[in-house]
């Protein structure tokens, strides 16, 4: 059964190749069918693989072919099937399929339709490699590959330079993280002599002998990679810009799958992180800071996709908080639920944008619930899910994080409650401003308003369902017990693959925490309702904003400007200085100078050849004297 795993990435690859090389002139529906079909096939195989894993099959490595051999360094392209990769496979292919489906509708009128589907297929291919790779290096292939696809998809509409800039930014910022990851791999290899998970964590436990400092260093370096990919402070700035890409891309890559690669990687390395406290602390702090930052910025954004983007940043931060505290399976849990509801939200927003003819500013929307019923309903479900209302998916995963934080670190606990409150507030702000009130757009837009086609709404519905029930894979003890269901199913499933924290929480505390979380979320929703629905307040136009904090948040804490000032401008200035001064004047100047000096010396030395016989004789005699004196 495991042998089949090779097929999983092959289907999307085949889809990509087919569409790229043979897709010319074929109908869009056919292309769309090929693209989605490929993913669907992968999904089917993934289900098979997942079932075997669920039933306790042993982790297996399936080798595809030899890749790199260099002395003792030996890496193949091979795939590791274990519970972690299996569950990732499942939701990636699943969500991926839905988004492909959705794209058929969303991109139908775009001249680059084929290209788009092909890229998406390629993306899924790389994402699957990332997940399936049996070593850090193979994972890195996927890691960079998804970065590449992200680049291509962000800059999909390449005629607009702004999109290209955003794409470039995403790629470069990711590359900074990748450098960390590469160095981390180097360090890991230098100490353990391998990069294969199997040898590192399972069969030979090669990481066993690592000194703590080294483990910390490796952990930090790998986390730098994760920072880039999963948009953590200080490498988060690319993600909101990445919304320049078509919305399905934002849903698939920049919300559901790619950005959670960092979490996957850390979870994959849980054995390593378990060896070091400090790396975990770093991750935790980076996570919570990112989370707060994202949440606060999201409060003020007016672009529907930007709000969701910052929300993603914030949620990713929360996942890292969980990772930092050692609750790896919890983070994975949140990854999965987040994939459902965030994909739903993005697709919903895409539907909105589709309906609005490309408008993304929520100040120009309002009252859309009348026009787009399915979208409205599913969007609401997504919003409730992310806000963390029982029994929606987000509630359970977020609650679990809060619970862990309560156990581990009270400060984290408080801060995550703050994030939780903010989330509820800004999501409902978004919801109310978009779907409630009066329509604030132009007449043309109003006229144009329509519900999206079924191919787009169907994924919304499916995702909405998942957003409701997705949480059941990780029911808390208290709930599970009372509902006679598997509780902490995911934890049990992943046990042995990732390190499990020893949580000892009694039911009362658990219930108390759940209650607290709900209250906070409801509080946030209430405030939003009060402000934007009851009082009908609107978001301020940019020019009306006076409050300093508001400005700060609206401008994303000036991060871009800061980076411009401390990195980009100096680099430009330095390279300019290199080009205009150091190279010609110093480095090459030395070379040319040597030539010129030789020339000058020649100019002086030739004067010795004065042509005067007297001087020649004198030189002769002097030479004679010198030699005789010397001897």
């Amino acid at each position: 059964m495991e042998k089949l795993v090779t097929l999983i990435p092959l289907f999307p690859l085949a889809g990509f190749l087919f569409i790229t090389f043979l897709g010319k002139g074929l109908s869009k529906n056919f292309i769309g069918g090929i693209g989605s079909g490929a993913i669907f096939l992968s999904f089917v195989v993934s289900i098979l693989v997942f079932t075997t894993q669920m039933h306790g099959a042993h982790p297996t490595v399936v080798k595809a072919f030899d890749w790199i051999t260099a002395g003792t360094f030996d890496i193949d392209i091979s795939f590791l099937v274990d519970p972690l990769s299996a569950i990732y496979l499942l939701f990636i292919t699943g969500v991926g399929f839905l988004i492909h489906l959705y794209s058929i509708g969303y991109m139908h009128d775009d001249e680059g339709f084929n290209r788009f589907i092909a890229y998406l297929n390629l993306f899924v291919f790389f994402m699957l490699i990332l997940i399936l790779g049996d070593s850090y290096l193979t994972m890195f292939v996927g890691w960079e590959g998804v970065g590449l696809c992200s680049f291509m998809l962000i800059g999909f509409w390449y005629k607009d330079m702004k999109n290209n800039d955003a794409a470039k930014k995403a790629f470069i910022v990711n590359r900074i993280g990748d450098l960390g990851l590469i160095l981390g791999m180097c360090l890991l290899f230098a100490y353990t002599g391998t990069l294969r998970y199997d040898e590192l964590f399972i069969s030979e436990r090669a990481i066993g002998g690592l000194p703590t400092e080294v483990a910390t260093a490796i952990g930090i370096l790998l986390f730098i990679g994760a920072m880039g990919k999963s948009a953590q402070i200080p490498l988060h700035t690319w993600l909101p810009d990445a919304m320049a890409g078509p919305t399905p891309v934002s849903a698939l890559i920049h919300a559901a799958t790619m950005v959670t690669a960092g979490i996957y990687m850390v979870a994959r390395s849980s054995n390593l992180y378990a060896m070091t406290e400090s790396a975990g602390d770093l991750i935790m702090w980076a996570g919570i800071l990112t989370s707060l930052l994202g949440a606060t910025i999201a409060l003020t954004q007016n672009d529907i996709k930007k709000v969701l983007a910052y929300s993603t940043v914030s949620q990713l931060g929360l996942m890292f908080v969980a990772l930092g505290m050692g609750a790896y399976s919890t983070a994975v849990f949140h990854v999965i639920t987040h994939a459902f509801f965030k994909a739903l939200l993005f697709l919903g927003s895409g539907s909105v944008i589709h309906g609005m003819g490309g408008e993304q500013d929520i100040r120009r929307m309002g009252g859309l619930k009348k026009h787009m019923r399915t979208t409205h309903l599913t969007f609401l479900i997504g919003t409730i899910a992310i806000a963390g209302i029982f029994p929606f998916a987000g509630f359970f995963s977020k609650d679990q994080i809060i619970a862990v934080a309560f156990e581990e670190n009270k400060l984290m606990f408080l801060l995550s409650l703050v994030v939780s409150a903010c989330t509820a507030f800004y999501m409902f702000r978004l919801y109310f401003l978009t779907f409630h009130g009066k329509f604030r757009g132009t007449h043309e837009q109003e006229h144009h308003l329509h519900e999206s086609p079924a191919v787009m709404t169907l994924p919304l519905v499916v995702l909405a369902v998942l957003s409701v029930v997705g949480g059941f894979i990780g029911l808390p003890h208290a709930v599970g017990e009372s509902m006679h269901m598997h509780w902490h199913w995911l934890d049990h499933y992943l046990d042995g693959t990732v390190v499990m924290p020893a949580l000892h929480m009694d039911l009362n505390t658990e219930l108390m925490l759940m209650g607290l979380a709900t209250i906070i979320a409801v509080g946030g929703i209430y405030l939003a309702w009060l402000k934007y629905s009851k009082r009908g307040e609107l978001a301020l136009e940019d020019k009306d904003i006076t409050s300093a904090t508001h400005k700060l948040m609206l401008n994303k804490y000036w991060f871009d400007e800061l980076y411009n000032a401390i990195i980009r401008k100096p680099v430009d200035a330095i390279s300019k200085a290199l080009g205009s001064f150091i190279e010609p004047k110093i480095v090459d100047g030395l070379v040319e100078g040597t030539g010129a000096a030789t020339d000058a010396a020649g100019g002086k030395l030739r004067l010795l050849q004065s042509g005067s016989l007297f001087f020649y004789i004198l030189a002769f005699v002097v030479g004679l004297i010198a030699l005789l004196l010397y001897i």
Partner: protein
Amino acid sequence: MLSEYAFWFLSFVAVFSAAGMIFSKNPVYSVLSLIITFFAVAGHYFLLGAQFLAAVHIIVYAGAIMVLFLYVIMMLNLNKLEEEKRSLWSKSLSVAAGGILMLVLLAAVQRTDELNSIAAGEFNAAMGQTKNLGNVLYREFLLPFELASVLFLGAMVGAVYLSKKELA
């Protein structure tokens, strides 16, 4: 005894007239001074028992070479006082360089203790005589002697070539 005085006398004459040659302003005087030097040198040869050489020396140098010099001077009409415009600087430089060279050479040849250890063999008074010299020249030095003719031939051809008037 006599020969000792002769040495000093001849040496004095040689050096003095050599100086005369160098510092005389009239080239003709220089030639004449040099001839005197040559005579003094010939005297030394005689003192050293090289009678034949002394004679040849006079004949070749004083008789032939210096006459040639004189001839050239006359022909080029150089027998007048000639002003050599030279800076004091270059003059003193040349005197200094020449003087130092002389001193260095003197110092070098002074350190010849090893020669004192050479046993004075039975002096062969006949060594410098024509017969003896002829024997050596035409036996051991036959090859160089013949080669000298090549040298002469070359010099002759060269001198004639340079003096020929025609063409460029």
